[in-house]
């Protein structure tokens, strides 16, 4: 086992303050702004984590009102994703679709968000009806907007309606002003727009870090896969950087509402703005954790050097890195885009937290990239990342192993407002369709979508941003592309459905689940679609053999999605939970849960809100919101067993090449799992046996998981389960469920 050692002598010597600037036209852009509505309000800081009010803005009618946060909201929904789902439920009808005026975008940071004493406490959750899935999507994002929104006086922001002009919503949490401004000449793409707006709304240079901008880019206007960039000002680089609310097309909803940007100007951040009930416990817990990172990170995941990209080579070593649309799990060229390279390419010795006080500091940046294509060709830019998902999705899954092209893809995804995970998976699908003749040059309008062709890949993205050509079709996402290809008779429908890696309409994130049944459930048995933020069980299941029975897998698929949900209720980042662990973690009874960190979270919640909870209460809090979200899905016409179906590529080998790349393993499974002899059988016959066995056990897993979650075998929460969770207090929720219980 080789442990990567950081070699400072190999770090590239790039001046991280150098980049193309975009402020020249700022005054003219500002002069073109026209105030459409302005109100004054009384800013306030939170008390025990809550400001106890939310802000409602209708961008169509220009209504701006405050709503109280009720005790019931806090008790049942906690904050963050919970508040988002609560507001969205009240805003929409079962017939509402993503582009109806009543659809909302809700941003809520959660009660613990904004503290600066513990790592990873600047997160917001963004909730909306997704253009890709037609059900609520929730996306977890860093950056400064959520905490500054709260320190300006609001636990959540609800955006409803549709404007007929491009507008900016500005909240000045210092002066107590909320303004809707027409923004007719503002830049379109995030890296330009956010830089301009940050300088436009800051009162002086010292004020720059107190501004945060939410924006998207050109591709969000022409695709269903738009995301939102949440900015944070990097004092050392002297530039605006981003974290992304990526999944599910919320950026598309944002532009459909004609919102150009949200801007908040908050008070100068200090350690006591959240006014916790017990600041001493928060400080003590934070000091203990910072010491742990300082002492242990260098011999564990090296997050401070590599960020999440530290697992590129690890996933490759375990046959889990998606290669060529999830066909294979490793590739000989991975060393070109693994963490030993990113360590050199990303700027070190700078502050890389996306919120104050995050000593994990994983928000790496690659400076000095000179773009080779597109509207910003020749510009020098800083790229936020690459994160693991970007390296795997834009890189190995598409066969792109040129790191500069990978960075350029990453950059354009960000500035155009495209989810990198979605783009990686849909491009991999396009490339495999090209390989198998489902697509050809004529059907792609001349794009040669061969594996690793980064130039064609980038051109498809530029087309997406222009709303032209095949890029526009690709921007519909995998689910709608599958329908389009099948409708046109462009290939075998079963093959197209098998290899198109989407579930519920959302593209899979970048892990191979074929050899881990628990992870197949971790992806498909989710509320929003196959995102790894509910359960990542591959090591426990496939490598450690800790989940031998269906009941074991179901228990893991009960606990971990609820545990992970809790981060999004409170404003936490997941990474500090398990990307560094205490020195004595190995001697704990359940080391994979990182029990000391679980206790930290319990302590932080209790110390913030003054409400004493246990680790069991933590799971109960999540279960209320998780089951509410499941019922919400059902209310929207989805959320049943049939909607949890997984594409076969996520369960097993679709093609001969896949089977033969792991023939020894698969042949052995025919013997040990099916009790048959593979000798004398053709690959096709063996593949058929696997399909029957693998789909059968996935169906059995569904039964086990639904039962453990207190749902019917059709995936509907039972009335008993709703009652246990106190959700029977909501008659509408009960009514939805009753319609599906015989």
């Amino acid at each position, binding site marked *: *086992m*080789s*442990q990567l050692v950081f070699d400072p002598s190999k770090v590239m010597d790039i001046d991280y303050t150098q980049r193309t600037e975009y402020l020249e036209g700022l005054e003219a852009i500002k002069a073109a702004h026209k105030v459409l509505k302005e109100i004054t309000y009384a800013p306030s800081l939170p008390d025990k984590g809550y400001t106890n009010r939310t802000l409602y803005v209708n961008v169509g009618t220009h209504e701006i009102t405050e709503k109280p946060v009720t005790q019931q909201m806090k008790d049942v929904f906690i904050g963050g994703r919970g508040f988002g789902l609560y507001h969205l439920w009240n805003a929409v009808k079962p017939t509402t679709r993503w582009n109806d005026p009543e659809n909302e975008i809700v941003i809520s940071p959660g009660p613990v968000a904004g503290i600066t004493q513990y790592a990873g406490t600047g997160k917001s959750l963004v909730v909306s009806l997704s253009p890709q899935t037609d059900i609520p999507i929730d996306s977890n994002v860093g950056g400064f907007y959520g905490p500054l929104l709260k320190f300006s006086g609001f636990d959540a922001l609800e955006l409803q309606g549709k404007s007929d002009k491009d507008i900016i919503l500005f909240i000045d949490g210092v002066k107590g002003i909320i303004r809707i401004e027409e923004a007719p000449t503002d830049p379109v793409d995030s890296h330009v727009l956010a830089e301009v707006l940050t300088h436009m709304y800051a009162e002086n240079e010292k004020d720059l870090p107190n501004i945060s901008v939410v924006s998207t880019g050109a591709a969000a206007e022409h695709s269903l896969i738009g995301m939102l960039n949440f900015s944070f000002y990097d004092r050392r680089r002297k530039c605006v950087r981003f974290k992304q609310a990526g999944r599910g097309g919320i950026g598309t909803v944002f532009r459909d509402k004609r919102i150009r940007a949200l801007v908040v100007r908050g008070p100068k951040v200090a350690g006591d703005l959240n006014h916790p009930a017990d600041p001493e416990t928060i400080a003590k817990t934070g000091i203990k954790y910072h010491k742990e990172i300082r002492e242990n990170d260098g*011999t*564990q*995941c*090296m997050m401070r050097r590599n960020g999440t990209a530290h*697992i590129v*080579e*690890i996933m490759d*070593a*375990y046959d889990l890195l998606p290669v060529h649309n999830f066909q294979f799990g490793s590739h000989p060229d991975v060393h070109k885009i693994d963490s030993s390279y990113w360590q050199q390419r990303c700027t070190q010795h700078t502050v890389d937290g996306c919120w104050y006080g995050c000593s994990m500091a994983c928000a790496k940046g690659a400076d000095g990239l000179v773009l080779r294509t597109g509207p910003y060709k020749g510009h020098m830019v800083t790229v936020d990342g690459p994160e693991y998902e970007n390296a795997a999705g834009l890189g190995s899954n598409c066969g792109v192993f040129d790191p500069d092209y990978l960075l350029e893809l990453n950059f354009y995804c960000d500035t155009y407002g495209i989810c990198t995970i979605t783009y990686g998976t849909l491009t991999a699908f396009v490339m495999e369709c090209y390989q198998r003749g489902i697509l050809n040059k004529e059907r792609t309008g001349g794009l040669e979508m061969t594996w690793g062709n980064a130039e064609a890949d980038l051109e498809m993205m530029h087309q997406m941003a222009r709303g032209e050509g095949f890029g526009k079709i690709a921007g519909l996402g995998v689910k709608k592309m599958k329908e389009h290809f099948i409708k046109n008779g462009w290939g075998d429908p079963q093959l197209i459905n098998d290899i198109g890696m989407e579930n519920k309409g959302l593209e899979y*994130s970048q*892990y191979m689940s074929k050899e881990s049944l628990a992870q197949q459930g971790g992806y498909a048995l989710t509320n929003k679609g196959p*995102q*790894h*933020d509910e359960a*990542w*069980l*591959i*090591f*426990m299941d496939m*490598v*450690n*053999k*800790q989940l031998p029975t269906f009941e074991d897998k179901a228990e893991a698929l009960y606990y*971990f999605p609820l545990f992970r949900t809790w981060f999004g209720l409170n404003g936490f980042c*997941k990474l500090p939970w*398990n*990307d560094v*662990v205490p020195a004595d*973690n*190995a*001697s704990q009874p359940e*080391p*994979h849960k*990182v029990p000391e960190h679980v206790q930290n979270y319990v302590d932080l919640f209790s110390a913030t809100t003054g409400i004493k909870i246990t680790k069991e209460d933590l799971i109960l809090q999540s279960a209320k919101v998780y089951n509410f979200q499941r019922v919400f899905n059902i209310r929207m016409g989805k959320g049943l067993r049939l909607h949890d179906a997984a594409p076969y590529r996520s369960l097993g080998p679709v093609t001969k090449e896949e089977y033969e790349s792991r023939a020894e393993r698969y042949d052995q499974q025919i013997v040990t799992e099916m009790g048959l002899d593979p000798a004398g059988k053709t690959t096709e016959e063996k593949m058929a046996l696997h399909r029957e066995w693998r789909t059968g056990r996935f169906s059995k897993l569904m039964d086990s998981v639904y039962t453990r979650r207190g749902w019917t075998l059709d995936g509907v929460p039972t009335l008993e389960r709703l009652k246990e969770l106190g959700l029977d207090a909501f008659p509408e929720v009960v009514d939805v469920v009753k319609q599906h219980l015989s």
Partner: protein
Amino acid sequence: MILVNEEPLGWHEGMTVRDILRARNYRFPMLVIHVNEVLVPKKDYDTTLVPDGAAVKVIHLISGG
């Protein structure tokens, strides 16, 4: 012969925990290793001998995302 996460692995005289990690290409840095139910500290991977017939658990902590 030893069992590593319930799968057989050939044993040789002088085999250490580190040898098992190399043989299995276990590169993840956060592992919890037990040999015959005895926890092996990380600092002892190079020196801890694994007896023939041992049951070895190499627990990888959760990663990803």
